[in-house]
């Protein structure tokens, strides 16, 4: 993906290990191994227009924006539209048609 372009913007791929290293980015993919660190990451990213994507279970309901999951042995997409809106981002209708929308879990659950 590195060096390719999307919407006339060049894609730069960086690996980060701590929240402090995130800096400025458009999309943050969170590896399943980083699930324990997700709450801290979420606080760091609060208010920033960063699209969060992951493939660990429960990501979308816990405040993540896009979760890749398995639906009938195939890749499915779960989208937390509230989290997306809170980050001042927008999901295209054509993607929403292919995905399932989820609502975030209530705090404390």
């Amino acid at each position, binding site marked *: 993906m590195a060096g390719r*372009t*999307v919407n006339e913007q060049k894609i730069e791929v960086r690996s980060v290990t701590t929240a402090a290293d995130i800096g400025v980015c458009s999309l943050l993919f969170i590896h399943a191994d980083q699930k324990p660190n997700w709450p801290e990451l979420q606080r760091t990213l609060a208010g920033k227009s960063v699209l969060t994507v992951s493939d660990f279970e429960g990501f979308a309901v816990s405040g993540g924006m896009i979760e890749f999951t398995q639906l009938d042995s195939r*890749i499915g997409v779960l989208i937390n539209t509230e989290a997306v809106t809170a980050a001042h981002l927008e999901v295209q209708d054509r993607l929403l048609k292919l995905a399932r929308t989820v609502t975030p879990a209530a705090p404390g659950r």
Partner: protein
Amino acid sequence: MPQLSLRRTLLLIVGTLTLFITLLAAKDVYGDWQRLTRIRALRDAAVSSDQFFDATQKLAVERDVALSMLYAPDSETIDELRIRLKESRQAADAALRATVAELKQYTFPDLVELRRQVETHLLVIPTLRPEIDHEVDLLPEQRNRNLPDRWSGEVTALMSATENLWIGFVSHFTDVDPIVTQHLLFKHLLRTITDYTGRERSLVGRLIAENSDPTPEQIGQLLRGRGIVETDWQMSRMLADQSGLSPAIGPRYSDASSHYFTMRDMLQNLFYVPDARHGATYPIGVDLWFELSTQASDSLGALRESSISETRNYVEGLITATQREITIQASIFLLALMLCAYSFTIIIGRVIRPINNMAGALLQATRGEPVTFLPPTGRKDEIGILANVLHAFQQNVEHIKRTSVQLVTSQEHLRAVVDTAVDGVILVETRKPESIALPGFRLA
């Protein structure tokens, strides 16, 4: 050969020069006007060419969606694609209608047969659509196994016929401007890329819908298509650089090629390698596959729109430049005519006529007729100098005449004295009174 007068010689020279300049300027104006007409025709042809592109692209999408539905094993997949099929049919019909209507204004004889072939294939499409609608509602094992190949064959044949028609059509405009020809070739390469990525989309969609592995023939088909597409990407890059398209379309080109190569990487290990999935289910469904491939197709569409816009701007620039040339040539032509007319007037009025008048007056003078050379007022040129000289000459002549008259008068007076003298005339030199001269006598 009788010698021409100065007036006629000058008239001949000025007239010949005027005619020469007029013919040269008129030739340039005519040439530019013909070029302007051709460029305008090229502009309209570029629009028609874009409609060809649009029509084949829409047909490809309809082909691929219908094929995926015909191979889909479950009603859920079919229902997901139903709306997309309906939209693609409407888009394809509209694009084809526009293309056929656009072509009617061109009466090139060599397009008649090519157009007939397109229209023949066009007639088959509406007959197959109801069959497809009927078959997709049946269970997979009840469906007509020949229909997918028939459908694919007819649509692909229609697209090939349309492409041949496009080639025949564009060949009439390749001698107008080399840059625009390169632009048209660029779009042709884009069209080929779109066609073959569409075929890949269709085949992959079918494999996903059936959840089957590609056969060696299908892998061969995919590899052939990929070879054509990647060669065309390279050639299109060269054409974009050579024709000056690159600065305007660079970002869109980068997006479209990035999208293509990202999709290629996604498909490589699953569909270009025999038995790659090892019996497992393909990771994405046919709806997600069509969405991903449509986004790549949209990137190509954006690139195409960008190149269309750039071609349009370039052609409009050509038209403006040619119109400006015509205006300049016509202005030079008129200026040359005016200069020639002015030269003619000046030469006749300020050179020939005064010389003729002077010559006439001198002739009169030689015949003893009274002539007056008036002094020129304000002319300091050669004619003015000549007129001054003639005036001075006339003054001298008048003076000589007057002097001559005086001499004659004196002579007559003297003769009268001599004739009437009785004894003779004594010439006395007042300074030497001693020397007195008598006629017939000489004193010592």
